[in-house]
Structure formats: C-alpha cells, structure tokens
C-alpha cells in the first residue's frame, strides 16, 4: 500500500503542485537519479528562494556527498525545518507542500527514506536599509525599517539585546497570509496592555493586509476621530525608545511602517530625537512644536474671524494694512481662505504624486507663481498667502505625519465655524475638540494624560526635556506605571 502511494507521489506530486499553482513560470523541479532510479526531487519557487543555497549546499551535497553512496538528505542540512512522512494522506502532503513553497521553502522529496523535507531557503527580495524619507534626522541613527520583517526584527534586536524582548507571531489575511509581530519587553510592558493588544489583534478578520494601516484601523480605539491613537514610525530607534517605555509595537511584513501603542496627545510633540541633543535646545524645540500645532490649527480661522467679525481686535496699523490689501478683492475673506487652503492641499497632494523632478517644479509654480499672480490679479489679498503659507509650514513641524493630518481636518472645520460664527464659533469648535480629546483613550490610557487626569510628576516630561543625569533611569511614563498598578 505504502509502495503504491510512493509511486503516486513519485509520479503525481509535482504535476499536482503545478496544477494547484496554475503552472507558474517560477516553479522549478530538479530531479536526482541514482542508478537510473529517481531518488530525490527538489521543488521550489525560484522567485522566492536563494538559488545559491539550493545549488551550493543542497544539491551539491546531495550529488557529491552522501547521495553518491545512496544516502538521502538528513536533518543536518542547513535551514532544515521539518519532515513530512509519506505515510500521511496524499492530500495533506500536497497542501503542506504547496503552503511551504509559497512561504519560500524548498521541498526535497526523498524517495529513499519516503519523506518530504521542508528546508527554508527563503530569500525575500528587499531593498537596502536606508533613511526613512518622511522621518529624516540630523543627529541620530539614519537607519529605517524596510519591507522585510526579518530585517526589521534584526534592527530592533540590534538596539535592545535583552532576553525579555518578545515577538509574538500572527498571520492575517486569508489571501495575503501576512506575518504580523507583536513586540514588547516582557519586564517593562504592563500585562494588561499586552493582553489588550493580543485581544485586539486576535479579533481581526480580514482577507488582506498590505500595510500597517490595515491593522491600525482594526485595533485603534475609535474610528470617528481625527486624532490617531496609535503612532506610526519607520525608525527603529523610535520603536526601541517606545518599547523601553513599556509600550507595544506591531510589525507588519511588507511595510516599513511600525505601529506603537498606547500614545497620548502630548507624546506627539516629543520626538526621540529630543534625546539626541542638548536638553535646553530640545525643550525649546518642543515648545515650538506646540506653538506650531496651535498656529497650524487656529491661524486661518482666527484670520477669518478677526477680519470679518472682530475688526476692533486687530491693531490699527495692521487693520489699515489689511484693509488696503482687501481693497478691490471680490471674494469674502472666508471664501478666500477656504479657496486658498483647498488649492494648497491640492498642490501638496499633486506634489506627492508627481515624479520628483516635476513635483518640485509644480510646488514652486503652485506656491510662488500662482499665489503671486492671484494677488496681482486682485483675486486674493497678500495676507491670505502669508496665512496659508504659515499654516502649511507649521503643519509639518509635528514629528508624526499622521498627527499632521488631523491638524488639517481641524483647521478646515474651524475655518467653517469662524466663517459662520466668528470667535464664538472657534471657541465652540475648540471646546468640542477639547471634550473629544478628554474622552479619547488609547489602549486604556487617557489620551490627554498627564494633563487630564492630572499627574503633576509627569508634566515636567511633557513641558521640558529633563537633562539625562536628572532622569530616573528606571522610571516609566506615569500612564504605563498606572497600567502596571492594575496588574
């Protein structure tokens, strides 16, 4: 019976694999014969494997070494994963072989010992490790994550050489079978936080995961909120710093973007880069980031409110100057700001999509020529160009790009409110946003901590970057300590 099955494997296995995968171009089967009898078949997908390993280690050792004496490959082979005995059901063998091939493994069908050896020769196509484009830094490591999860794990391990660094593996996407890793430091990350992350990850049901954003949408705390409750970075040093703060990271195969949780509102204004430079400079820059946030969110709406409802608030000379600029402008200030903001966003979006050489030209044309021409043509006032430019620049100051997106949403809503109700509208909007922020949580941590609930001990970490000798090296952020307390 077994022989009957062996025969069937010998004749049909490769053909069945070929059928199942639709005769792909990269499917390779190399057969080895001893005394004119087929002894070994080596099946792999050439696009997924390292051919050098197969040629130099596997086939060479098989043809020159033990195989010459009638021996089959053994468990001492490099990258040996596991074996499937022929005694299993044929269907099961076929399925296991196919999934192994798709994972970049090589199936050695050993007819002598009647087994299939699965050997890992996976060599994912990957780009060089280089600096992340959206998160470049002056001082600090210039390495960024790549699209290969193994390399990304290596980049984290390189920074944290601790036995308690944990990687929990998940597979998501019935079609993509994407590997996702939950990373944390067992002795630092609160148990409740890790449990919550596990629970949220386990609940994901999806057919595909192509980017960490897919996972983010499933595990974030609230769908209808402009504020991100998870951070997203491509820098391994950022991930290492956050893991050392007791947080969890989620790595997704195929993307350099790594998710970090939990995140609070004020953490978006501090960057690990703050800790690579002097404390006084870092503190000053942190304040600039806060100012930039408020500038990016409030300046256009304040301009609309002040120029259309509360002219008495503007200093006289400025009012005269603004008034002179508005002479002959046909559009109301509200429409002007809205129009210019929309045009600015369109130019920015177009600049991102355009090939680099054209993109630069486009941004110059957009920013200078279009703005200047519009002012000269009397379509808009010069002050609007300044307002929109300041807003546009300050929007990029926040270290996390996704947080910049939320600023844009807020800005547009506030401009609408300012256009309808003036400062009263802005106040209503700001109160609404404040209430929303106070109600948000990220993985059980209040989003506005340490401001609300107030924790004075942590305020100094938010408002200033404490010099390193004054820091308590064992101290975790207050909200992480609280989660530890729950344990």
């Amino acid at each position: 019976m077994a022989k009957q099955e062996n025969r069937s494997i010998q004749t049909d296995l490769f053909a069945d694999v070929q059928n199942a995968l639709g005769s792909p171009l990269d499917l390779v089967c190399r057969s080895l014969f001893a005394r004119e009898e087929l002894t070994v078949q080596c099946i792999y997908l050439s696009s997924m494997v390292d051919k050098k390993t197969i040629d130099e280690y596997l086939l060479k050792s098989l043809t020159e070494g033990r195989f010459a004496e009638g021996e089959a490959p053994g468990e001492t082979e490099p990258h040996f994963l596991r074996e499937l005995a022929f005694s299993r059901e044929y269907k099961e063998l076929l399925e296991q072989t196919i999934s192994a091939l798709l994972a970049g493994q090589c199936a050695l069908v050993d007819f002598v010992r009647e087994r299939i050896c699965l050997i890992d020769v996976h060599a994912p196509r990957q780009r060089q490790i280089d600096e992340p484009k959206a998160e470049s830094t002056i001082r600090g490591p210039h390495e960024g994550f790549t699209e290969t999860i193994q390399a990304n794990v290596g980049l984290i391990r390189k920074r944290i050489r601790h036995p308690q660094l944990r990687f929990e593996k998940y597979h998501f996407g019935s079609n993509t079978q994407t590997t996702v890793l939950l990373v944390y430091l067992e002795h630092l990350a609160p148990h409740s936080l890790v449990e919550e992350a596990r629970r949220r990850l386990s609940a994901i049901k999806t057919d595909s995961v192509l980017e960490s954003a897919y996972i983010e949408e499933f595990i974030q705390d609230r769908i209808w909120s402009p504020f991100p409750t998870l951070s997203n970075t491509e820098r391994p040093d950022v991930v290492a710093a956050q893991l050392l703060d007791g947080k969890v990271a989620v790595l997704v195969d195929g993307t350099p973007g790594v998710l970090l949780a939990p995140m609070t509102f004020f953490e978006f204004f501090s960057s690990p880069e703050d800790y690579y430079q002097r404390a006084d400079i870092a503190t000053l820059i942190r304040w600039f980031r806060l100012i930039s946030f408020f500038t990016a969110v409030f300046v256009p709406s304040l301009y609309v409110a002040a120029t259309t409802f509360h002219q008495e608030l503007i200093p006289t000379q400025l009012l005269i100057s603004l008034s002179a600029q508005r002479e002959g402008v046909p559009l109301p200030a509200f429409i002007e700001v809205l129009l210019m903001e929309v045009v600015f966003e369109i130019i920015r979006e177009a600049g991102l999509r355009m090939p680099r050489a054209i993109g630069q030209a486009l941004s110059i044309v957009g920013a200078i020529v279009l703005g200047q021409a519009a002012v000269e043509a009397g379509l808009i006032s010069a002050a609007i160009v300044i307002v929109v430019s300041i807003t546009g620049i300050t929007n990029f100051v926040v270290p996390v790009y996704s947080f910049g997106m939320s600023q844009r949403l807020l800005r547009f809503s506030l401009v609408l409110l300012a256009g309808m109700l003036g400062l009263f509208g802005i106040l209503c909007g700001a109160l609404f946003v404040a209430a929303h922020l106070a109600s948000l949580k990220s993985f059980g941590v209040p989003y506005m901590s340490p401001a609300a609930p107030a924790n004075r001990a942590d305020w100094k970490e938010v408002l200033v970057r404490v010099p390193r000798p004054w820091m308590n090296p064992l101290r975790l952020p207050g909200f992480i300590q609280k989660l530890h307390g729950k344990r």
Partner: protein
Amino acid sequence: MVRRQTATAFFILVFLSMLLAACWDKTELNELALVSMIGVDSDPESGVKTVYFQVVNPLSSSSAKGPPNSDQAPVYTYEIKGKSYGEMNSTIYKVLPRRLFIAHYKAIIVSERAAKQGVREIVNFIEMQPNGRASVPLLISDGPLSPFMHTLTPLERVPSDALDSRLRQLTRHSLLTGKQIMVNNVIERMENGETIVLPLVTSQAENVPADSGETAANINAKQNNFTIGGGAVLQDYRMVGRLNDKELIWYHLLNGEKGRQALRFLIDGKRTSLEWKLVRLERTVHWQQGQPVVRIHLSLKLSSALSSEYVPETRRKIIQLEDQVNRIMTDELNAFQEKMKTKGWDLLRIEKLLQRSRLPGQQHSATTAKNAKVVISVTTKLSQVGMNTPY
C-alpha cells in the same frame, strides 16, 4: 438609527446655514470706513452741531508707507451737520459710502466754543457708539475746529497718529500733558466733581493746501501743522478757563505726573537749565482748631546734565543749589496754588482729599475745602551733574 438621523439632520442644518450668506453677521474690511479722528463743533447761536469724521484711506497709506503721497490723501474728512448728534449716525451716509467704524479712532477734538457750552453731550455721543472706545484723548481746539480737521501732519501716516504719538512723548519728556486726559478719565473725574485740565491744540495753518502732496513736499514741518500747548480747564463738563504752559507744569507736578521736565532757574545770578523728575508726592491733612491744613511735600530728583552755565563743583555748592531750587519751586508752587484758589478751581483735588481724611462725625462741606490751608514744600536731590568743564 435615531443617532444617525440626528447626525444627518445636524449636518444638513450646518450646510444650509452656510448658504445663508446674506444673513451672516459679517463685515468685510473693505466695507468699513476706519475713522481715525473725530472732531466736534457746536454753534452756540444756531445750535447746529458739526461732526467731522476723519476716515483713513487705506490705499494711500499702503502705497505711501509713511508720508502721504501726492496721488491720494491719507485721510478724508467727512463733515456732517445736524441739530443732534444722534441723527448724524444716519445722515452721515448721505456722504459716506462705507459703514462707520470708530473702534480704532485715536483722538477726539472738541472746538473751544463747543467745550464752553459743555462736553457732556459729546461724551455721551461717544459712549453711545456701539464700537466706540473711551480710552482716547479728548483735546480742545484753540480756535475754530475746521482747520484741524483739514490739516495733514508730517511724518505720521494720519493726523490722529501724530497727535497720539505727540501726547505720549510729551507725557514722558515733559509735564505739559498728563495721562488723565482720556474720555473715560473725563467722565470719571467729572462725575466725582473734580476740576480737570485737557490739552489745547493750536493750528498753525495759514491757508490749508488742498493737495496733500503739497504738504508732504514742504520742508517746514511747523507750517500748516498744529501744536499742542496750554490747557483747558473743565468743571462740570464745561470749559471754564485756560492754563499757560508754566501753570500746566505746576499742575501736573502737583498731581503726581512722573514725566521729566527741564526749566531755567536763576542760580548764583546765572540762568541755568535744570531737569527734574518727581520721586515721591506726599499729601497729608492735619486738623488745627477744626480747620484743615493740607501739606503737600514733593521729593524731586535733579539733574544739571543739560546745564553748561552753572556747574556745582563742591559739595557745599550742590547743597546750595538744591536749597535755592527748593525755595524757588516752593514759591512758584504756592503762588500757583493761590492763583487757582482765587479762581475757584480745585486743581489739586483738595476737596477729594478732605472727604477721605475727615474726622469721625465731621460733616463735609465745600466751604471747608475752599478755606483749607495748603502748605507746599519741595525737597530736591541733585543726582546727575553734567560736564564739569564746559568748553
């Protein structure tokens, strides 16, 4: 389901409210007439009131960035006449094409004849304006008002800026004006029954040029300009008299103004300029046989830095100089006080002081204040000496 319907209804409402553009309570900047100065005149015979609104011409100021250019005047003066100030809020639009916006006006000038009739109505007119401010200086014109409202001043963009800035400089570098000259100060002090002094402006204009460029091209800044000098005394919202520059200095000094002031004194037979600054002003009341005695003591810091005629070189000479200045100033101040008392102007706010410091059970009366004995003394201390060997 209900929540979704509510949210949809909310968004529809927000969207519809945006369509109601005409109903928004908004005003674009180019719909406003930015008033920079207000002039008020009243003819006592006919009862006709005239209000001048000096409106900023934004185009001129932005293009000229300083002195008025020859193309357009930096301000346009709109004149409106009527029997009451209230009706002018409507009739102004016979000549003015934009909405009157007086939140940024910098000065209000009242003609002498209007001030003599009383500024109560004018103050009320300012207070009635929905966006009017009371923290602007109130000045009295020496002579007819019309030339002031048609005079362009050099250096500053608009005449009101020139006035405002000059008043600030004068407060800091002299005792010719004080800080308590705003409309709200006038209201507060008039309501307290005090006598106040407001700055007088005098026009130097001989014949006002019609072309603003002509003014800008003239090197003589004094010509066709107006100067601040002298003070108008107001009692119960009515102008009752004047003070000259010297009297103004004593008035502001006795009222605690801290500006620097230089005057010429006769020391050792030589005329010398000395500058002083008030350090402390003490006002105390003693009761002698039921009659009040008000003691006013002034401590001044002296400087002879501006003097080249007389330089004290020894300690003895310094003490001598201080003594002489003390004596001269005490005499001058007492003389001033006596003069004001004769005129019946309580410029030193003696009545107010007595009200505060009266004995228990004692009734206050205006006669007590009038009969109060006032003793003024001055102590000076020379703190700065100029060149000890002038060329």
